[in-house]
């Protein structure tokens, strides 16, 4: 088995643990009452960008399912799957380019697909909830997540790039 596979498994495990802790215990109060800002999607976008689509999708899936388990209200599969789709899409878009600009473009597209596309459609199929309520919830979630992800994922990626030595940063002494 290649080294990458073991590394991906560990990255999924630790990524899911980080996602869980951020989603469950790190609640930043937002201006809207009873709504917290979810910082975990910024982390997920960053992980998907660095480790690829498989890690992004599975870390989102496991992390989100564990959050739902720990609250005990039953797994809300439609939103768990949407988290996985978000990680997968960001990972796929970032396969070639890992710049701040490309990460931000891909996260905006992925959030839109996940929260205005996947989550509401699954909600309607599984729970037969009214269409306009679901899409409003999805749109609000998408906008809030896009803003937080833009700030957090960008800062994370910049910090991560700064830790990597650049090509040609060493010079031979004369």
């Amino acid at each position, binding site marked *: 088995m290649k080294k990458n596979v073991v590394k991906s498994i560990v990255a999924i495990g*630790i990524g899911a643990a980080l996602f869980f802790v951020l989603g*469950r215990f790190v609640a930043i109060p937002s*201006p809207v009452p009873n709504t917290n800002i979810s910082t975990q999607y910024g982390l997920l976008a960053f992980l998907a960008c660095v480790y690829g689509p498989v890690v992004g999708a599975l870390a989102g899936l496991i992390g989100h399912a*564990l959050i739902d388990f720990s*609250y005990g209200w039953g797994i809300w599969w439609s939103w768990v799957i949407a988290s996985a789709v978000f990680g997968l899409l960001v990972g796929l878009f970032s396969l070639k380019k890992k710049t701040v600009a490309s990460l931000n473009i891909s996260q905006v597209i992925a959030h839109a697909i996940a929260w205005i596309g996947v989550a509401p459609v699954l909600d309607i199929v599984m729970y037969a909830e009214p269409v306009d309520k679901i899409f409003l*919830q999805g749109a609000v979630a998408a906008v809030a997540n896009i803003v937080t992800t833009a700030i957090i994922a960008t800062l994370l990626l910049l910090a991560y790039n700064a830790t990597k030595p650049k090509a040609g940063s060493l010079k031979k002494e004369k």
Partner: protein
Amino acid sequence: MTNIFNYIDRKSPIHNLTGATKFVCLLLWSFAAMVTFDTKILALLPVVSFILFGLSKIKLKDISFLLVFTLVFMVMNNVLVFLFSPMHGTELYGSCTEICKLWGNNYLTVEQLWYHLNLVLKYFSTMPIVILFISTTEPSEFAASLNKIGVKYTIAYAVSLALRYIPDVQREYHEISLAQQARGIEMSSKENIVKRLKSASAILIPLVLQSLERIDVITNAMELRGFGKNRKRTWYRSRKFTKADIISMIFCGALLLLSIGMNIYNGSRFWMPHF
């Protein structure tokens, strides 16, 4: 910190079932509750789950916190649905029995109330069984059980790693947060939203960079021990199936079949008696 999943250790027939059985039953059960809007089935499932609760020796006060949380969520969701489309029931059931006028072109209808009854029943048919699962299954056995029902062991191991490192990450987060607060960052609602996000990043960056390092260390350790060399692996926590395991899986399978069967018999997912 160790008990975030609310596992309660008691001696009971439910605790004795293997983790794999309980996980399969949970999946079958939640699908059974998900596919149908037949009120008879949605009323049957909560009754059966309350009997199971009795068997498991989990007391109401053990889980009251989880229960209150979920009930609040349920009420909020119902209110939202009603405010957004008070005529949703009419669309679903295809008939309109008005009780009184509300606002605009909207009426309070029997169909809408029936739909809300079904929605509430739906919560009561999945919620107790999930609470039962998390309070009677040990987290480490849960990871082993995933492998047993056919999930690749590498993925099951990732789940196991996540469960193992959640307390560590949590402690690390707490330490970094205290250190940054000592340097004067503010995360409460006194600051404006952009500032708050920036202070969150001041904690996240060290936490994530440290975790990336941790990923490398664990990868090397697993690599050295030959992880992933063979196609199969054994689990310290796994147990053999007993008769009770097989019976409970067949029972939950039958529930799913019954619920799909009722959908076919009714001709649709929705069912309503004639008033």
